[in-house]
């Protein structure tokens, strides 16, 4: 039976494609249930140095293992001063502190929307970026396969959106590859074929082609394009009269508020994602990535700006979504951490344990989770790296269960039994 929902969705999109979608119809389609819970995974490629991101300044070994890279402990007198990304650590709980490049996260921490899981990572010992990223994205340490976030989607509802799974990148990353359709949106502002005749012929061509890969690729691309255009018609133009779904213009950062513009490529990507979420595009799983964390040398001159961009992008996203953050959880991860001891060139080499951050309106934040394994030689993994005390799948399991509402993890993380959940989400 053709339900009202299916009718509304089908006709809204078809008519929008011909430029005739009445506003009420598109809005009705949206109101009919495209508001969804969204899980956003952000991958820090290159192995981020957890020890200098959320700093264990309370561990007496910290300054010894980081004689030149070690960051200054919090200075009580500058508690509320913004010292820029090169200042002392920002105190969180008397033992751990944020790198000063992460200042935009302080407010989220104070609002209890940011949780940090220390010493999280993969049980697999690989120190290869390539393998470790593949294992983590697959959710199967030591093995590769389709992505955990794709498996976490479960069967689509009848009215599932073509933008149900979205990667804000040029290609669909392994995290989102698998049975369910996923769309890679890189450069959204040029995502358009303006000549309607050429568009129609190409769409027809890709739907007919015997080349199965190209047929699927074409279908995903044309459907996503059509949907974005139909949504753009309904949206008021952005500040400054720019059309919706176009990149933000650079502007001054005001009142120390976090800003997408200060967030680099991630900022642009999350701005697009926020627009999709706010216009009820039905996004359930989203992926974004930031590279450049492989700091073998000169780390203290590179990490501050990278963290400043990273935290501006995410905090601006949270600010932009406002109350809608109740529907959104962000989780960050990196393939492994870096050596506890700094190396000989003002950097750190490939290590093991790192950390994860979880942000959102329903997050039980303002707390450091996970057991701190310590930095004494005998406490380290293979005598050199931070040990992993929380399997990354334990963190992800909780979000798949509690946020996406799946009740069976066996297909998402096959063969994995999560340790007791950490209680990252408010019940």
């Amino acid at each position, binding site marked *: 039976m053709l339900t009202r929902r299916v009718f509304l969705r089908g006709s809204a999109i078809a008519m929008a494609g011909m430029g005739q979608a009445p506003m009420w119809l598109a809005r009705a389609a949206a109101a009919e249930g495209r508001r969804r819970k969204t899980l956003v995974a952000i991958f820090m*490629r*290159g192995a981020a140095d957890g020890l200098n991101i959320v700093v264990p300044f309370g561990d007496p070994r910290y300054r010894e293992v980081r004689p*030149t890279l070690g960051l200054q402990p919090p200075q009580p007198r500058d508690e509320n001063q913004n010292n820029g990304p090169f200042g002392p650590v920002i105190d969180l709980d008397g033992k751990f502190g944020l790198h000063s490049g992460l200042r935009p996260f302080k407010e989220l921490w104070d609002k209890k929307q940011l949780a940090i899981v220390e010493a999280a990572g993969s049980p697999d010992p*690989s*120190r*290869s*970026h*390539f*393998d470790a990223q593949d294992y983590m994205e697959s959710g199967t340490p030591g093995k590769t396969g389709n992505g955990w976030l794709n498996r976490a989607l479960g069967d689509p509802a009848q009215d599932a959106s073509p933008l149900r799974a979205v*990667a804000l*990148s*040029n*290609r*669909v990353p392994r995290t989102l*590859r698998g049975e369910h359709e996923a*769309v*890679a*949106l*890189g*450069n*959204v502002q*040029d*995502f358009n*074929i303006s*000549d309607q005749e*050429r568009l*129609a*012929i*190409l769409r*027809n*061509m*890709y739907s*007919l*082609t*015997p*080349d199965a*890969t*190209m*047929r699927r*690729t*074409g279908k*995903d*691309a044309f459907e996503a*394009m059509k949907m974005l255009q139909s949504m753009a018609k309904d949206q008021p133009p952005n500040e400054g009269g720019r059309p919706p779904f176009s990149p933000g213009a650079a502007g001054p950062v005001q009142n120390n508020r976090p800003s997408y513009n200060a967030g680099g490529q991630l900022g642009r990507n999350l701005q697009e994602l926020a627009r999709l979420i706010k216009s009820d595009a039905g996004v359930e799983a989203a992926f974004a990535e930031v*590279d*450049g964390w*492989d700091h*073998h*040398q*000169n780390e203290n*001159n*590179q990490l501050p700006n990278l963290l400043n961009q990273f935290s501006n992008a995410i905090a601006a996203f949270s600010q932009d979504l406002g109350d809608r953050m109740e529907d959104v959880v962000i989780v960050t991860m990196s393939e492994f951490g870096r050596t506890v001891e700094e*190396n*000989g*060139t*003002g*950097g750190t*080499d*490939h290590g093991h344990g790192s950390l994860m951050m979880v942000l959102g309106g329903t997050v039980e934040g303002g707390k450091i989770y996970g057991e701190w394994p310590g930095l004494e030689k005998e406490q380290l993994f*293979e005598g050199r790296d931070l040990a992993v005390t929380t399997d990354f799948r334990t963190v992800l399991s909780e979000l798949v269960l509690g946020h996406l509402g799946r009740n069976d993890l066996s297909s998402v993380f096959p063969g994995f039994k999560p340790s007791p959940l950490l209680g990252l989400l408010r019940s």
Partner: protein
Amino acid sequence: MYRAVYSNRQLEEVLVDYWTNHFNVDSTKNVGMAQNLGHVLIGSYERDAIRPHVLGHFRDLLLATARHPAMLYYLDNWESMAPESFNVGPFAPRRGIVNGVPNSIIPNGLLRLAHGLNENYGREIMELHTLGVKGGYTQADVIAVARCFTGWTVRNPENPEFVFAPFMHDFGEKTVLGHRIPADGGEEDGLKAIDILAHHPSTAKFISLGLARHFVADHPPEALVDRMTQTFMKTDGDLRAVMETMFRSPEFFSEGAWEARVKSPLEMAASTIRAMGAEMTDAWSTVQRISDMGQALYAKAEPTGYPDVAETWLGATAVIARMNFGAAVASGELPGVSVDTSRWQGMDHRSIAKALLGHDASQQTLDAIATGLEGRNPSPAVVASLVLGSPDFERR
């Protein structure tokens, strides 16, 4: 870019592109105070380190990349040194930055930071350049290889040339993959490591697999990779011989290998411009478009280079960008690229498609064009824009 379009030696261009990605460097990486150095070095890297060796012996290619400043900077080997160097010679804290001769080797800004080993190159030369990640090395081998290469550095940013700096070298004994490298070796330690790695059976297999993937299929037949591996071992890593084994194989001409590969954005752009017989007077816009299609040239941050498989290039926005690129070239709207389609005036869509593809287009593609343009008298440019955006043109 110009060579990719115009060279008469297309195999060489394909190989240069392939090996530049295999030995990836990111020309946008900032090396301390030496901003933009990567952009200065990338041309020489491709021309002097990669191009002369793509049909030579693998060992020579590996050595040329190991010694090139672009690689020495990118994977940090230039400042990796024996830990005790910090207290001797120019790195002794009290010596500071003076006009002593050895000091000119390291740019001043990093002097206070560099004081010991950096594992980056030691690991990636094994994982990515030679053995492959499952090639049988350990963390101890990573450290040993990194120690072998200490002192392989760059004179300075103003004269970026290879130099061996003895005071940075770790002269102790090392064991690399079971081979003992005795103490007091000097620059030769690195050469010995290169020889061990270049002739290792895991390298023979890893290099053969990569080439077969690039030229035959994303998942090439094992028997073909095995034969190429044998050739590699028998010929001391002669890449021309390995390529010949591949080109003469039945698998290379098999049905499954025919257009099994999706073009990279660079291949897409070069093949579009070549097929159109277009003239490129300025590469800027084309390079921008290639970046929009997902391949920022010479700017891949990770040492892995771009994954050499189809899904790397087939994101939704990237696929539309590919279709739009063909249309922009065909209609003459891409700055720096001019076209003349008058030679196709009066030809039907089937003939124009054949001229562009080098073979007949699929019936489905021809049908879609015929139906869509029915009753019209389309210009050759309109037909070409559709053929260049078709699934048929996506593969090679």
